[in-house]
């Protein structure tokens, strides 16, 4: 362990702002890249379901 206390860990030797900002942006970017395609898939499938129902009705 590189830190003696939790407040040391948060402070990062005075560089806390830079370190935590970097890791926060990284988290946001990673989450966006997973959530965005997942939501997209939901939308695509619901559109396909709707279209399929319409086609089946018109038969």
């Amino acid at each position, binding site marked *: *362990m*590189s*830190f003696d206390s939790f407040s040391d*860990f948060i402070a*990062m*030797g*005075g*560089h*806390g702002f*830079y*370190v935590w*900002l*970097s*890791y926060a*942006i*990284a988290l946001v*970017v*990673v989450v*966006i*890249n*997973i959530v*965005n*395609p*997942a939501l*997209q*898939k939901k939308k*695509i*499938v619901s559109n*396909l*379901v709707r*279209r*399929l129902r319409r086609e089946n009705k018109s038969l």
Partner: protein
Amino acid sequence: MSEKKNWMPRWFYQLASPRWSYEIMGKLLPGFAIAAFLLLIAGTVWALLFAPSDYQQGNSFRIIYIHVPSALLAQSCYMMMAIAGAIGLIWKMKVADMVAKSCAPIGATMAVLALATGAIWGKPTWGSWWVWDARLTSMLILLFLYLGVIALYSAIENEAMAAKSAAVLALVGLVNIPIIKYSVDWWNTLHQPATFKLTERPAMAPEMWLPLLVMVIGFYCFFAVSLMMRTRNEILVRERRASWVKELVEKQ
């Protein structure tokens, strides 16, 4: 007489089938997702808590564990996009076009992440958020190339035309990749040289580069997950009239 030599592996031809690709990616996804999750969590804890601080840079050095993987990934993703685009151009393989299209937004966000963490790291280390240095400038050009590819896809309605133009732009922009790589050797620069080289042992202590390696592999697994999710979406949209897609939707 016209016996064509079968020098391409079988999976290469199978990849040409959207259905086969959709299914194989569905099978591969959970494994990569678990690997990405575990590696990124373990790597982050290791990087933030257990890796030693740098004797010159102190704890701001920990930004390397985000910066290097995202920069590596931004470049690998670009190469993949260009190669997939070339395969689409040469063999008219639709799935390759879809992979290329799916690479662009992921690569763009990775380039943003690399540039942002670089700027944040630059402030306490060099005293400036940004310098017009060769490495930073060529990385910014990489971001613009990604944005150009995305713009082409959204501007051109015809899917085949859009894929063709984007592939040409991606291939032309490929020249930027060696420039990024060698920029730290060719020009005087503030940026430090590469951490990992294939031919030498890292100059860093293993306590520092081992967590970095974990993060790099974790980022690549994450990339695989995101890319397969996007490509599968793309396949569903473009194959929406195919009977297998209808069957798949009916099951849900």
